């Protein structure tokens, strides 16, 4: 398959023009093409949750928050196949948080791509566990008074872990860490930071895609060989 054949042509994404999800979708298909693999793709609910349906592969679009256990069931039955979950921060870290704790602890061999846009985008822009303190959303109109969660630390609660943080604009880096996550034997978690343009982006004065991407470039820095990433650092931390 050529990389374009990895997409269902008759199912057009629902995403806003300029959304980081388009870059992620396109680059992930290129990775599959390059590695000559046809993984099973699974998504939960949300904007990112629509991802599975756009791949021209065997795909599952499950319940809100429950796609990690569903994917684990698939992997346990199809140990010969690559299994990849692509879902959002609300889906994986809030409602699905318990399953992330335990599937990662069981170290099931799959890749979880968590697209962190800091908000519940599809439902209009409510607070998510990754909404930074002070950010205004529909459910934190005066600015969130809660610190955001660091998914890296959830992974680091395990003896063995793989965690990567990247962004769509650090494209080469994103490709590199996703490939590394696929190659990792065990539970690999990739956080891709982007911003929901229509909600959090708008509130931060970053409604224009070019401004949002520039903001990601200016604020996030690639680092190497670190035991732990700081809040605005991109890289890989792992323990075997």
């Amino acid at each position, binding site marked *: 398959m050529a990389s374009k054949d990895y997409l269902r042509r008759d199912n057009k994404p629902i995403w806003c023009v300029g959304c980081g999800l388009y870059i992620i979708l396109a680059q992930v298909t290129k990775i599959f093409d390059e590695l000559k693999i046809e993984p099973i793709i699974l998504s939960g609910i949300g904007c990112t949750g629509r991802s599975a349906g756009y791949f021209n592969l065997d795909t599952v679009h499950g319940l809100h928050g429950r796609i990690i*256990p569903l994917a684990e069931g698939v992997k*346990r039955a199809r140990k010969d196949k690559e299994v990849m979950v692509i879902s959002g921060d609300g889906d994986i870290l809030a409602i699905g948080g318990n399953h992330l704790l335990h599937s990662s602890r069981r170290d099931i061999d799959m890749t979880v791509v968590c697209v962190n846009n800091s908000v519940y985008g599809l439902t209009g822009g409510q607070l998510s566990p990754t909404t930074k303190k002070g950010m205004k959303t529909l459910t934190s109109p005066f600015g969130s008074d809660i610190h955001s969660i660091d998914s890296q630390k959830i992974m680091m609660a395990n003896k063995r872990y793989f965690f990567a943080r990247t962004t769509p604009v650090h494209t080469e880096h994103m490709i590199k860490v996703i490939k590394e996550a696929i190659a990792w034997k065990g539970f690999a978690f990739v956080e891709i930071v982007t911003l929901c343009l229509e909600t959090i982006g708008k509130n931060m004065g970053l409604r224009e895609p070019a401004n949002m991407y520039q903001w990601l470039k200016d604020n996030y820095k690639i680092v190497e060989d670190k035991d732990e990433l700081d809040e605005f650092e991109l890289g890989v931390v792992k323990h075997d």
Partner: protein
Amino acid sequence: MKEILHGNEAIARGALKANMKFFAGYPITPASEIMHFFAKQKDIQFIQTEDEISAINMGIGASLGGMKSMTATSGPGFSLMQEGLGLAHKLRVPLVVVDVQRVGPSTGMPTMPSQGDIMQSRYGSHGDYFPIVFYPNSAGECFRYTIEAFNASEESRTPVILLSDALLSRLYEVIDTEKIQFRLKPRGFKPLGDNKRHFTGLLSEGGIPRTRDTKLYRKWIKEMKTEIETVANRYNFYEYLENEGSDTLIISFGIASRVISSLKEKYSLFRPIRIFPILENEIKKAAEKHDKVVVLEMNYGQYKNEIERILKKEVHSINPVGGRIELKEIREELNGI
């Protein structure tokens, strides 16, 4: 070979006979013996999950991946599984879900039997769906109807619910599993992984979401209903003991039906084993010959409402709730009807 098995072990043994390859579950009284049994098996995938939500979703995933799958729980866990049951209906995934009923609501009386999940087994999830539900009443039947639950689930491509209760779960009986006749229904679709299919909870056509298409929804749900009912009609399991000298028909199932089995000398007894979709014709036919119909169940009249609905007449109700069921009490109530 004759063996002494309790209801829970009989369910587990039946599942192995049905070629179940995946079991995910979370500990809960009085269902845990089922998972204890599977934990010892070498040739299946067994996993103790973090909760029942994970168990049912993992079961759905493993089933999509090609393994016959099962989970087992009790009332509180069954409640947590309801959203997953809806998903399995929407995705059309075969799966067997066992609910060993205990007294609720909430933690209630965890070691005592109840039949309080009858409506939950039928209507527990959101939206419209049409589950097949079996409820055996002996260890031998637990074995046999677990196999039939797998068959019905493969044929209908839906989750099938097998009800039991805290008394049946520990009722030790001598059974010869080798003498129980059965056939196995094969999987009707290819496992996930080598095709280009999209399984989605959204209303869709050919993998494309059609989430505002009323016409499509009506067509889809009607087809699903018809397909499930067609399959269910191949599993019309019930027991009817007619007593020509009696003007009273007692309808009961599971452990309650077991307790009153000696009453066949005085009354007609109807025992649905497939409790949903309800055996409308069979129950109507049996009821026609009797002046009085009594539903005996360990809840406050859940199935009685269903029977009144189909018979369109008042039905008597005997409700030994709270975990204890005694023939003497039931006899006294029957004398007063």
